[in-house]
């Protein structure tokens, strides 16, 4: 009997909550349109920043009144993302921004969404279904730029270690293929070891530690890392290798990496340990997190009846030694004028991805990537 009572009470409570929810729905003259974000992993630095830039874009003056924006997480599971996209369509989405877990597996769900008039825009990764809009960098260019810089720096000669991303993904295989194509032009460049760094600092350090166990630092002439030049320099620091002997490294845009590229001895507030200027011979190219924000803009353009291109290629903005400039505040305007790394006192995490800037996103500054707040 008691159990029955409890069940009834629970049901009553549930019903009243439901009806309250229904009652409190805002009634407006012009219904804002529903935009969803289906992101993949939570728990990866770049992913977090990218999602924040989308939040910022949705909260910017231009769009704030026009949209209701919701974020859902699919994790690494493509099945879940398919289910999520389908459910979003059912929930009345006008546009869905997707970080696609797989470039192909979502195609059927995306096609179904398009057929119901929903705009689907993918960022960073690609969706091969023709009705989808894509915003990404040129992955082959990404692989090529780093490899070419390294080959030039080494004057076409030396032993190279490659730390790649996640095996079996399009992004990784396209980048690696492009890098290897460059190295193939230099018969005296030899790739002595190659390992997956899983696009994270922890993975990069583990992979590199294993490689160094067999190939000591003095036998390596150059390193190509998708993520982790910061880690490579830190490990050399710990091994007692002086700054002027550090092995050149080509890689992505982590905050710590760019600080290390500043000339050795530069005074920068907030540096410590290996997170310090060391004149690191290096190139750092951006895979801008603002791709997410651009994807949001593309979606809104489609809804507004403009005709954006199906594919937006975001430039990767390489930063070489001598080109590193510290931002005072990290506003978009400042980055537009050429700064490309943030104060260590503001961004304490050297793993932060500093390549936020794109010319297309004046709404996105450092605050957007950190907290999802748009520029004024």
């Amino acid at each position, binding site marked *: 009997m008691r159990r029955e009572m409890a069940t009834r009470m629970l049901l009553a409570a549930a019903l009243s909550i439901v009806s309250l929810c229904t009652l409190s729905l805002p009634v407006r003259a012009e219904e804002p349109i529903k935009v969803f974000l289906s992101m993949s992993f939570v728990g990866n630095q770049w992913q977090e920043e990218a999602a924040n830039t989308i939040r910022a874009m949705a909260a910017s003056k231009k769009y704030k009144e026009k949209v209701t924006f919701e974020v859902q997480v699919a994790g690494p599971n493509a099945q*879940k993302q398919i*289910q999520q996209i389908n459910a979003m369509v059912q929930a009345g989405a006008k546009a869905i921004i997707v970080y696609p877990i797989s470039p192909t*597996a979502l195609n059927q769900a995306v096609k179904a969404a398009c057929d119901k008039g929903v705009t689907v825009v993918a960022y960073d990764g690609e969706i091969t279904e023709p009705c989808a809009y894509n915003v990404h960098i040129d992955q082959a260019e990404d692989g090529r730029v780093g490899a070419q810089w390294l080959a030039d720096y080494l004057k076409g000669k030396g032993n190279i270690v490659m730390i790649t991303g996640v095996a079996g993904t399009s992004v990784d295989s396209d980048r690696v293929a492009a890098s290897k194509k460059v190295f193939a032009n230099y018969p005296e460049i030899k790739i002595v070891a190659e390992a997956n760094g899983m696009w994270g600092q922890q993975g990069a350090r583990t992979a590199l530690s*294993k490689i160094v166990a067999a190939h000591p630092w003095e036998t390596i002439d150059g390193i190509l890392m998708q993520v982790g030049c910061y880690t490579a320099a830190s490990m050399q620091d710990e091994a007692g290798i002086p700054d002027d002997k550090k092995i050149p490294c080509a890689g992505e845009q982590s905050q710590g990496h760019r600080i290390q590229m500043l000339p050795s001895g530069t005074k920068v507030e907030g540096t410590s340990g290996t997170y310090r200027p060391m004149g690191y011979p290096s190139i750092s190219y951006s895979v801008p997190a603002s791709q997410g924000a651009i994807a949001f803009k593309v979606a809104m353009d489609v809804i507004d009846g403009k005709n954006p291109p199906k594919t937006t290629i975001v430039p990767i903005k390489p930063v070489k030694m001598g080109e590193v400039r510290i931002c005072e505040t990290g506003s978009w305007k400042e980055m537009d004028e050429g700064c490309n790394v943030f104060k260590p006192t503001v961004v304490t995490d050297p793993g932060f991805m500093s390549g936020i800037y794109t010319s297309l996103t004046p709404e996105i500054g450092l605050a957007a990537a950190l907290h999802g707040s748009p520029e004024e």
Partner: protein
Amino acid sequence: MAQTHYLYNIKNPLRRFRVDVYRGPALSMIVMFIFVVLLDLVSPTGFTQADLTYTASGGASLALAAIGQTLVVLVGGFDLSGGAIISFVNVVLATNLEPGTASSVSWVIAGLLIGTFFGAANGLVVAYLRVQPVVATLSTMFVAQGLALLVLDKPGGNVPAPFSQFFLGSLFDGSLPMPLVIVSLALVGWALLKNTRFGTYIYAVGSDRDAAGQRGINVRFVTFTAYALAGTAYGAAGVFLTAQTASGDPLIGAPLLLQVFAAVVIGGTRLGGGRGGCVGSAVGAYVLILIVNVLLVFNFSSYYATIAEGLILIFAASGHSSSDLPRTNWLDLASIWGRRRPAKNQEISVIPRSDKVHGLPGFFQRNADVLRYTMPAFVCLGIIIAIQAGLYGHVGLSYLNSQITLASFLIILALGQGTVVLTGGLDLSLPWAICLSGLLFTDWTQGDAASTIWAIPAVLLVGAAIGMLNGFGVVGLRLPAIVVTLAMNGILQGVALLYCNGTPSGMSPEFVHWIMTGRVLGFSPVSWLLILFVLFGVVLLGQTVFGRRIYAVGNSVRVARLAGVNVGVTIASAYVLSGVCSALVGILLAGFIGQASLGMGDEYLLSSVAAIVVGGTLITGARGKYIGMVGGVLLLTALQTVLASSSLPEATRQIVFGAVMLAAVVTLRDA
């Protein structure tokens, strides 16, 4: 049928059959029903035919895979290879399918056969070579994953539209989605199988292997067939997935690994065998996929999503208490909650599997059993190091140092995870327990050495609290360990992200960084500390009352309880130990990297299980020595180092890794 009940009753004479038999599927169906009603009420459009259609296909491959896993679990096994087999079938079909019915039909058959082949390979190794299921299927997982990467190194392939349309279509004017028909067909197959003599054998073998053997059942053949049929189900899942995604992706199956187990457990099948069925698992799969819709409707956005998912998982499994745990007076919570009842079934009917007691002296004789299952890991380690030396000329101090430093994380985790496994549990909350601990540590210290004095104990306390919660879930709420710790992992992930707001802050103090990367007499300081830790672990498990209780509980909960062991406290303290070990690894890993980074614990979940099992620990509990686990860790680390130093492609590496691991462990077969 009389035989069924006879065999069934060997283990649990007082079981109320019928009610119990249908409890699993019934409970999971109720949960599914609640979800659907909820979605219908809360979502603006209700739960429509369209929702039914896409949900039917969304959950189908998980359901098929869960059906396969259930067969293995019912005979007392454990299969980690399902996801990789699905990926392999997927890429083979996506690269070979051509338009036309003939091609479709033959490749569907080929897909089923490929799955069956891998399943049979698992079965062969488990049943006839007597290798532990976890190791056998983990090896298969690596081999199948490697092969999938060889076939397709990135997503691609082409699937003719009619192929997809057939599997995603519907019968009876669109009212009955085809995926449901397919899953139902698989369940009909299961129902037929269950009611044959063979079906009875499956339950008999899973309930009590020895008794089944004595009844004249060919235990090995039954086990083998269960694995092979599971493979067929994975093949079917792969075929369906190919139709659903109309493409090939070599990584598509990997994330299904833990989902499949969750589906099986939610469906009421008991890990360890003998109880449950495929219907519940299939429903469990749909429960899991509907969580996506529930999260969407209630707008649990990003950081809260994993927390909500964890809580829903616990809710969905809350009907299934694990019956082999007694109702204990664990902090007397159970009695406060009014759930305490006098214990029934006190007959001792389980013969402890413990090592035989030898009265004779002599170190080797006394420790023959222990040596037999701990030595192979060390022997293989020697071989691997020799190979490393042969390939790269020298094995110097720096090589040994990096090996021990890299292995240190797993050596510490192995004590916690190993202890939990010895009690018959499993801790899946390691990844985010590690990550959260690292985040807290760097945030609290902000690189300041002085504050480590309080920060380290504080973080270890957090780890203990996490373990306490796990223990409470397993003992106090009597939920399956896999569900509790998987949910905990999701909850911790959410908490970690909320705490740092997506961006970790702070640095590891220089002192901790030095422990991981500095040098004292040629080795990193952590290597020296590790000697103390290993000694501590060996003594803890081997020489203390605590250790004896752990083994006793793993052997038989009932016997342990009758012997006066407080089972609840013992099990809970194993989880606490695991939590503390995770926290310690979080601190050291933050020191190793220099700061905490998101997702830094992810790679240690599977490897912690692999290492302890390679080190001779029985995944079902009770057997295993810490020193053997340490050997397992060192072996796997050395193997990965050899492979990472080479320029072999990733696909080949995975195949080699799987094959070597299996070869190393074939020598571990217990007589």
